[in-house]
């Protein structure tokens, strides 16, 4: 904005004269905005930073009243402690096994459903979509008791497949909903062109639609992965033997089992959180639009 523009504005109220007027006020506003920006930045970034910082700090710098901001000299001692606790390998394996199985299952079944609602018009299509939309909001916290009895009947209490089933149903509605968006986004003309060129419907799908769907599949499966990876309540309630714990149950038990060993607790938390942070940074733009299209975090 040029000075002449400013000149046409109403004269500043302050008696300091024209020179101290609009530009000063503008600078002040900018300064205040930047200050607010920095405060916001700190409020959100600091707790995350503090987790990593504490994990790398020498023990004597953790238990100080005046916090040491930088983890210097950095140490891997807490990570070693955390990882060498009994069963760590089991927990990691359980978490990966359960999460990946659930994601794979939900991805396969959701892709089929997404194709049906994204590509075909059929009776009941709208009701089906409404069902998916509503189911995404199901309060799974309220279904703990019936799941307990179902799993008991199936002899799956304290068995990892129970978690696979539960995380599958947690993540599927969202996956269907988001994938549907991606399917609709693939131009129908491409598919038709392939069919004119002699592809069958299935071939057209495999060679044309599927490759274009790949980014959507990746984003959706990452989101499903994060949901299942983070889940605490069901794992905590249904996995009773230590060798069946997933990582969240392990971290939760850290606090009670080892008192205030904050270094090891933060190291374990960092290890658990890091993959999620990386994934999220990679897909967050897709996620924001996907969620408000009527979807739920889970």
């Amino acid at each position, binding site marked *: 904005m040029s000075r002449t523009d400013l000149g046409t504005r109403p004269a500043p109220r302050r008696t300091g004269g024209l020179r101290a007027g609009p530009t000063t006020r503008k600078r002040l506003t900018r300064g205040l905005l930047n200050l607010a920006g920095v405060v916001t930045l700190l409020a959100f*970034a600091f707790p995350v930073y503090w987790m990593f910082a504490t994990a790398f700090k020498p023990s004597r710098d953790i238990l*100080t*009243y005046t916090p040491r901001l930088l983890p210097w000299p950095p140490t891997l001692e807490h990570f070693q402690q955390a990882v060498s606790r009994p069963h760590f390998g089991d927990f990691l394996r359980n978490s990966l096994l359960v999460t990946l199985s659930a994601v794979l299952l939900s991805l396969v079944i959701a892709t089929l459903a997404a194709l049906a609602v994204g590509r*075909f018009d059929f009776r009941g299509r709208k009701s089906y979509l409404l069902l998916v939309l509503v189911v995404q909001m199901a309060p799974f916290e309220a279904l703990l008791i019936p799941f307990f009895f179902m799993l008991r009947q199936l002899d799956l209490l304290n068995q990892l497949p129970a978690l696979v089933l539960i995380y599958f*149903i947690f993540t599927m509605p969202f996956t269907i909903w988001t994938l549907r968006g991606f399917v609709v986004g693939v131009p129908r003309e491409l598919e038709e062109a392939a069919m004119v060129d002699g592809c069958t419907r299935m071939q057209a799908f495999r060679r044309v639609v599927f490759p274009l769907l790949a980014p959507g599949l990746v984003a959706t499966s990452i989101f499903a992965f994060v949901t299942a990876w983070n889940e*605490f309540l069901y794992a905590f309630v249904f996995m009773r033997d230590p060798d069946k714990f997933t990582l969240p149950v392990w971290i939760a038990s850290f606090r009670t089992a080892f008192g205030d060993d904050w270094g090891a607790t933060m190291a374990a938390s960092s290890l658990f959180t890091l993959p999620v942070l990386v994934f999220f940074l990679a897909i967050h733009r897709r996620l924001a639009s996907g*969620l408000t299209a009527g979807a739920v975090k889970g």
Partner: protein
Amino acid sequence: MGRAPAGVDPATAPAPSHGPAPGGPRRAVGATRRLPYLLVVPSLAAFVALLGYPLYQVVRISLLKLDLGELIRRETVFVGLANYRSILTDRFFWTVALRTVLFTVVCVTLTMVIATLVALLLERLGPGLRLAVEISLVLTWAMPALTATVVWQWLFDTQFGVVNWLLTTLGVGAFEGHSWFATGLSTFAVITIIVVWQAIPFVAITLYAGLTAIPRELREAMRVDGASPWRSFWSLILPVLKPLFMVTCFLSIIWDFKVFTQVWLVRQGGPNRQTVTLSVYAYQEGIATSHFGRAAAISVTMVVLLLAALVFYIRLMLRTQEDL
């Protein structure tokens, strides 16, 4: 919507009862007509088995007397609405229910207000700082509820927590050795901070995306016409973003009302059961103390409360989903 390929539309496709058709195309049409149904069957089966059935079961169990004895003997004792009568006449249940509603209202209000401010702020920041704030928001959003809770407990630690140091250093008061978990109210404040802190990024990022979609000319026009920022917020931004506000508010209510992990990890509902919320209560009654019938009744009541709070939203949503 023009999504159906020609000839697959049930209205125009020939009815199968017209006798055998000459040649293959007819069969292909029949197969294509069945295809979408075949594709949705697996997911429908999963919904029925893993969601419909548990839903039916939670209602059924809420009508049973089902404690440890019945569980071991595998007995089914119908008692009608006795469990509901028992919880609805229980003062503690009402305390917990009211507390949960209040907690949800506070969390959602704080989330929506602060997130709106953050979104407006993002729009006005320079590109460098904006990117930094955006990244910090995404990191927070990505933090698992579990580790977020653990980290905030560390920040609020009585002896070595950063919060006590910061408050003391800023001259707010003498917070050395102050315990945040001694009273219910103060513990709730910490839980609220954790929940709101984690809930803001999603709402802020969504609203910011909505803000950037408002045509620049429109806002310039309002400025030129001499509208104050306040005025342009109420008469331009708010109406345009209304659908986004509705959706994010709706989702926040659902998430905050049923929150378990954060509440449970902070003090397992303590001190003195003063931070027990409905989902924690249902867990304690059911899984921890084996009053499954009562716990199921609590769960059902919880769902009914949530539905009642959201009836308005759900109706609105169904109306806006016309174009599915």
